[in-house]
């Protein structure tokens, strides 16, 4: 007997390859989305800082923009720079 596979439809879940589970700013899961977004994934991406801390892009942008002087990473207080 020989088995021919005509179609194989698999199921996978995606996840952000981050060390942490939740965003340090909004406390929402990375695999979810920030409070401002409705759809997770491409529409609400993560961003890493130079310090290797990850946040929802929208969250950290809000944070950075709200700081009057140079923004710091909310987690480690180092100067915030987007990881290149």
């Amino acid at each position, binding site marked *: *007997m*020989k*088995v*021919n*596979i*005509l*179609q*194989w*439809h*698999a*199921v*996978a*879940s*995606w*996840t*952000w*390859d*981050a060390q942490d589970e939740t965003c340090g700013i909004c406390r929402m*899961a990375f*695999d*979810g989305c920030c409070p401002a977004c*409705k*759809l*997770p*994934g*491409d529409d609400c991406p*993560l961003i*890493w800082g130079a310090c290797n801390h990850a946040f929802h892009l929208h969250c950290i942008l809000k944070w950075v923009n709200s700081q009057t002087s140079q923004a710091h990473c909310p987690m480690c207080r180092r100067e915030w720079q987007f990881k290149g």
Partner: protein
Amino acid sequence: MADSISSVCNLAILDKLSDGSIEEILESYNGFCAATDTLLNGAGDLSVGPQFLSHVHGLCKHGLESLLRDHFLGALERTFEKNGALKFWRHFEAYDDVSVEEEVFYNALEEISLEKQYQEKCLLILVHALQSYNHGSHDSNDYRVELFAKYQMSVSSVLMATLPRHFPEILHWYFKGRLEELSTIMGGDFPHDDDEDDDDDDDDKDDMDLDDKCKVSYRSGQMEIDECYPQGRFLDNNKLVNNIGKVVRDLRSLGFTSMTEDAYASAIFLFLKAKVHDLAGDDYRISVLESIKGWIQAVPLQFLHALLAYLGDSVSYDSVSSGLKSPLASCPSTFYPGIDTPSEGLVRWQLRLEYFAYETLQDLRITKLFEIIVDYPDSSPAIEDLKQCLEYTGQHSKLVESFISALRYRLLTAGASTNDILHQYVSTIKALRTIDPAGVFLEAVGEPIRDYLRGRKDTIKCIVTMLTDGTGGNPNVSGNTGDSLLEELNRDEENQENAGLDDDFHTDDKQAWINASRWEPDPVEADPLKGSRNRRKVDILGMIVGIIGSKDQLVNEYRVMLAEKLLNKSDYDIDTEIRTLELLKIHFGESSMQKCEIMLNDLIDSKRTNGNIKATITQTSQAGSELGDNGVSMDVFDATIISSNFWPQIQDESLNVPGPVDQLLSDYAKRFNEIKTPRKLLWKKSLGTVKLELQFEDRAVQFVVAPVHAAIIMQFQDQTSWTSKNLAAAIGVPTDILNRRINFWISKGILAESLGADSEDHVFTLMEGMVDSGKNGGTNGSIEDLIVADEEGESSVASVEDQLRKEMTVYEKFILGMLTNFGSMALDRIHNTLKMFCIADPPYDKTLQQLQSFLTGLVSEEKLELRDGMYFLKK
């Protein structure tokens, strides 16, 4: 006797009497008595008239007028009793039951009427005699009327006193017989068979102030006699009706007025009732109200019309011919006389008859309402009929009571499936919405159903299935119901749009005025506690959600069901799901459907990503084509990529997929990672669908199966016999699950199971030769196989209960800890303690029932013990 009367009455006269005059009086009196006897028994011989006259004058001279009058009346009465009444009743003696022949009846009436006429003539002679003596000193007419009234009274009292018990029955029977005859003549287009039901209980509604009505109609009825008949049937009917009219008139003159009217009224009503039952029957697909009305017009009203007209003629002594002028002149086309120039009496009759018909039909329909609603869309004419009846009679409460008891007896029982109950509920809502747009009665009727459904576990599941399976995809659910609920969603959408207009603040005054003038008060039966009509707007979905209590549960169940469906899709075609979701969003609000939307979005994204990955992967890697004979090309591979946070918990079982496929998976994941950095894929290997073809030497069979089935069967390519332990190890699933899943192939006849050396270890062998190819779907049975595979593949999404269990396991440690400290605790206390202390993430938000079922689970796992309502740690 005569002397004694005179001695009492005329004492004063007696004193003045001389012997001569006494002599004279006696002589006159004897003569008078003799003449009276001759006259009354003389069989039409009026020759004694002059002699009689002189005696009367002689007695009157002495002021004995009242004496002779009384004597004469007495003699009349006795003679009537002897000649009339006794003979009359003798006609009927032979008939113990009511079936007297028509002929006999006519003869008897004829005879007694003749007798009475003769006696009236005699009485007239007396009257003339007295008048000629008095020379008009009395008002002659008054005098005559008075005497005749007395005579009439004595006639009816004689008859009444000797009335046989079954005479009213005889009358009833007679009228019924005539009515049927008339109906047969008239009923060209109203065919009917005389299946009379012999219940006599119903002829009581008819004796209220009949006389008034009839009398009114005597006066007006004569104007329009016979104009109603179509030309052809005219003569026949006329004869029949004249006969009846004559009978009625004769009976009336004998003093049987009310008895007669009772008889024909009850006959008509019984007849009508039988007719309604006959017409309405058990067929709910046609409206019968109109034909009943038509029949009323055609038969009983014609009958009454003619009867009243005939009687009207006979009562007024004027010319009869005036009535006959119009049969052609007045509207020959119309069959219904009442409509043109109905007399008041006739109109009243019509109203009574129609009311009765409405009531009968309504009762009939109400007792069958359950059946009617069972085949609702088809039975809507019957519902429409019932609605009209109820509008007329206003007996809605009868409907509610009877229907509720029918529901309790027939629907809300353990034997009825939840689907059926829901189906019936929906039909009930729809049907009653027609009858009662305000939903007042619906509320009363729906309450028991809702209460009952709340007690059923699978209610939510059934509702969601009904909501989503519009296309009838699931053969277990009747497509009709699903369709209708989905339609409801649609309808609801339109309503919402309209409602949006209504809510608009800028609605102009004109519209407001129109709305205001359209306002109607609630029916009196409305329960004031249940809020106003606005809030009671009949809304099927609302009522269905009302069963569950909250929409969250419903949405959750829908999500589980949707996940199940999406995960089993091998194409990315989700158009129907999107449509359903959009409709649900309108109804339940966007935010509660958010997760479901993300799920659908995942599917759309997956399709795009899948295309992208496959397009780019073939350029970079040749993995698929390198694999040779056993290979699986990337072309046949697809993936659904989900955002697991937003999906219901998914039961992921470990599984070792076959090597080539595993290679594909990792290639795919790698490519995904490249495209979507820094996202990566986590395979849920046991999920998905596989379409495969088993190629035997002589044939090939196609199946659509779960990955685990594919993994199992692929192991048999190289080795045709496996023990369950080895096989389980090879594909990386626990043995018990393997044993369960492998049944699929055994049932298909592809594998065979036999006991191995070790009793725990089964041996599975490939049935290469295929002993019985026809056993369970051969080459051509692929459609059936598809379904079987679907059903067998166990739900890949955790059911709501399982999810609950998973969520509760967090608290297991808390509970065990508590019990270690406190020794034993009651359910309430555990619940409260958890509520008090587990406020952090995740907060304890379960109900007492949920906790209880979880604890019961722990007890069955022998972690806890339950004694006297207290939970202990199992030692």
